[in-house]
């Protein structure tokens, strides 16, 4: 790289000001287990986790209790199941009190945790169990039937079942479980050989022994997590995140938040699933380290499910994605009595809409800062700074110790203000994809992670995502970014949501196609096109507008353009 490289100058340092340090010391704890153990000692008597059901019923665990129970689980893994350091343990459950116990127990045992989306189908489960080589699985009883179906096709030896109201007071837990099982019929019957989590903990406790013997040898370079990602390219790949990667990202995140996180005093609302890397690192790891109380909501859909959690607890922090904030802002109970103690809210996962951010800040009076990250980077790369001037519609500035630059197809930095692929280097980058050297070599080159996202940087060092490189549409040689078209579409009042993809076209190579969810049922395709013509140049105007009742989305609410593309492709193939 030559001397005029605008990214080497790190113009974002100007925005760090006095609030964010440019250099961070290497994280003091040798492992996440050591970090968790130290946090549990500092905050022993404080409540660490509270799970809140939609009707307000709840159960809690203190820091000391989480510490003791996760020690028991580590003993169970090592002494009862005879797992070895580095063995994989799959964890598949919605947000509930079992999650921190099992996750920390797995790490304390020196094992590697594999987060799995509980909504996966049996065949997706088979792929991840086999790919990761998981020896044990801890799964919520709601999906025991899928587990029983998947089990014979895997090498999984041990299944532990847990319940959503695990560790609730007995009467309350019994009611919640009975309602789920007999009323809502959510708990399927199965004839699988499985241990319940309380039995496993009991067996672990009976074995005795100091759990620290297994986690004390752990170092930064040891693997902590296989976090599956890359559904976008078809087969899910496991990003290898080490204890060091995650400890660094915790340190980077806490440096970015500075005094906005008050040790031992925060109450964070976790509505996003902990099996997703964003909530895992930001809500779970950072906030546990900070001695916060974590309010876990098993299912944020419908968004009404959050009402009792927000009413009954003094929430100071929350994280979410655009759809979640949008949902909250359409609830009267939220806008009429917004939580009073919110210090800040974080958004990520997918681009936040301008109108949603503005409305949220107006309603709560707290900043909603947007960030950017990937599973491959533990995940945080950039965040809007909490102090100083924020640039709307941006992903903010790189976290400390993180280098970001924008490059062209040849890997050379693009000039300031020009769009280029965002590449990252920093201590939070994964070691690679589990057992996939080719896939790893594609994204990790010379220590840089090629994100596949196209961004621009301004002179202050603020980054703005233009679009996914893969989603870019090439219309007669012109680059069209779907985000820009979607943004134009959603500015029309009658449009609730929109997705834009490119479809093969004999004349222009690719053509722009828009999928629109109407707010106003009377809206016509002609009206949509007329509106587009007022905002966009000719080649960006959709060749076709299609109306839908809803758009395909991921569990965290990202619109799945690839599914729409898939539909078009199958359709074209069928037509020959």
């Amino acid at each position, binding site marked *: 790289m030559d001397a005029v490289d605008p990214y080497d100058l790190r113009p974002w340092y100007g925005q760090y000001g006095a609030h964010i340090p440019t250099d961070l010391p290497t994280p003091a704890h040798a492992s996440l287990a050591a970090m968790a153990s130290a946090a549990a000692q500092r905050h022993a008597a404080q409540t660490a986790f509270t799970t809140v059901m939609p009707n*307000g019923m709840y159960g809690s665990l203190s820091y000391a209790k989480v510490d003791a129970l996760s020690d028991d689980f580590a003993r169970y893994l090592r002494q009862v199941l005879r797992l070895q350091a580095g063995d994989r343990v799959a964890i598949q459950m919605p947000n509930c009190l079992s999650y921190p116990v099992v996750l920390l127990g797995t790490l304390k045992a020196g094992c590697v945790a594999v987060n799995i989306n509980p909504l996966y189908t049996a065949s997706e489960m088979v792929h991840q169990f086999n790919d990761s080589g998981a020896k044990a699985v801890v799964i919520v009883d709601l999906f025991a039937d899928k587990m029983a179906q998947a089990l014979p096709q895997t090498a999984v030896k041990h299944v532990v079942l847990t319940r959503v109201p695990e560790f609730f007071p007995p009467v*309350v837990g019994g009611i919640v479980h009975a309602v789920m099982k007999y009323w809502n019929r959510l708990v399927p019957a199965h004839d699988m050989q499985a241990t319940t989590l309380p039995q496993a903990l009991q067996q672990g406790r009976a074995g005795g022994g100091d759990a620290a013997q297994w986690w004390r040898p752990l170092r930064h370079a040891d693997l902590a997590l296989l976090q599956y990602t890359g559904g976008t390219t078809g087969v899910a790949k496991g990003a290898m995140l080490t204890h060091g990667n995650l400890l660094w990202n915790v340190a980077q995140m806490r440096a970015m938040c500075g005094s906005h996180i008050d040790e031992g005093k925060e109450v964070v609302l976790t509505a996003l699933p902990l099996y997703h890397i964003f909530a895992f690192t930001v809500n779970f790891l950072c906030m546990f380290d900070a001695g916060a109380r974590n309010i876990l909501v098993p299912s944020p859909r419908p968004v009404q499910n959050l009402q009792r959690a927000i009413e009954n607890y003094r929430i100071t922090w929350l994280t979410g994605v655009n759809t979640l904030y949008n949902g909250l802002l359409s609830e*009267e*109970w939220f806008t009429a009595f917004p939580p009073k103690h919110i210090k800040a809210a974080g958004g990520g996962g997918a681009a936040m809409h301008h109108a949603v951010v503005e409305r949220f800040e107006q309603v709560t009076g707290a900043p909603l800062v947007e960030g950017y990250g990937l599973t491959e980077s533990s995940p945080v790369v950039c965040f809007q700074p909490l102090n100083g001037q924020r640039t709307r519609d941006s992903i903010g500035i790189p976290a400390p110790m993180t280098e970001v630059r924008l490059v062209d197809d040849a890997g050379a930095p693009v000039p300031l203000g020009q769009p280029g692929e965002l590449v990252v280097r920093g201590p939070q980058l994964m070691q690679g994809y589990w057992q996939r050297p080719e896939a790893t070599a594609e994204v990790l080159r010379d220590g840089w992670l090629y994100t596949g996202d196209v961004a621009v940087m301004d002179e202050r060092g603020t980054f703005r995502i233009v679009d996914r490189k893969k989603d870019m549409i090439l219309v007669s040689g012109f680059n069209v970014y779907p985000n820009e078209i979607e943004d134009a579409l959603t500015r029309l009042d009658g449009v609730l949501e929109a997705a834009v993809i490119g479809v093969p076209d004999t004349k222009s190579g690719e053509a722009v196609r828009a999928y629109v969810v109407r707010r106003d049922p009377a809206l016509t395709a002609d009206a949509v096109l007329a509106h587009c013509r007022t905002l966009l140049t000719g080649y960006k105007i959709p060749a076709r507008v299609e109306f*839908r009742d809803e758009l395909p989305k991921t569990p965290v609410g990202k619109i799945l353009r690839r599914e729409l593309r898939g*539909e078009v492709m199958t*359709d074209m193939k069928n037509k020959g």
Partner: protein
Amino acid sequence: MLSETETRLLGVMMMVIMLGMGASLTFKDFAIALRKPVGVAIGLVCQYGLMPLLAFLLAKALALPPAYAVGLILMGCMPGGTTSNIFAYFSKGTLSLSILMTVCSTLVAIVMVPLTLAFYSQGIEGQWQVPRENVIQVLFVLLVPTVIGMGLRRWNANVGAVVEMLGGLLGVFVIVFLVGSWVPRNYQLLLDTGFPVYAASIGLGLAGFVLGYALSRTLRQDPRRSRTIALETGIQNGPLAVLIVLLSFTGTQQQEVLLIPILYSLFIVMSSSAVTVWFRRITAREEVARDAAKIGSMARA
């Protein structure tokens, strides 16, 4: 007739039921409801406008003797029954609206019940009138557990939610208990009772369903909310009426006045169950139609 012990037991059970009802709502829910009072207002109009008038007209049309007329009018003037919330849940109705209507009608009962009762029973002979003090006293006594229930909810969400559930279950149990203990002892009376009394007991609830639905549709509530309001309007607090009668009358007079509230409680469980099954089907069909619309749009793609 119901014994002294049974009356006391009923009183205690009513308190638990009201405790549970109070625990089903938070103070914030109220504040939110009062910001947009249309839903609650429609509910109150149905509860204290429609139902007492309906009871009065039924009593006139069927030319009921004073004892039965007063029982029917008392039934019509009652606030919403807590069992309506269970039926709203089963029928896939708007549960929050149902709970809110029940609680609101119960809280204003202390003013509205004596007023409507006095108004519609003007023409009834003095000895058959329900003493106003008794009504106020019972309602006041029940208001206390309602407010305590709300306090419990605020103090501890777990205790509140458990109490709420207990109260709801007890609501059903009390009606079964009333019917189960009363019918065998009075089957002769049931056989001797004429058509007008049965028509009044069954008709009050059914007409309440129909008119509640018609009124809320007229006032531009969507079909699902309207079905909820219909159930809420038709289902009155039967056990409360029974308790008031037990405390206001004695001997054969008590037995006669009690007839319609008991029969109403018996039949409302049956008619609500039937209506619930029907409503549930309609809601399910609407949901399927919405899904089909989605699949249709996908097929077009």
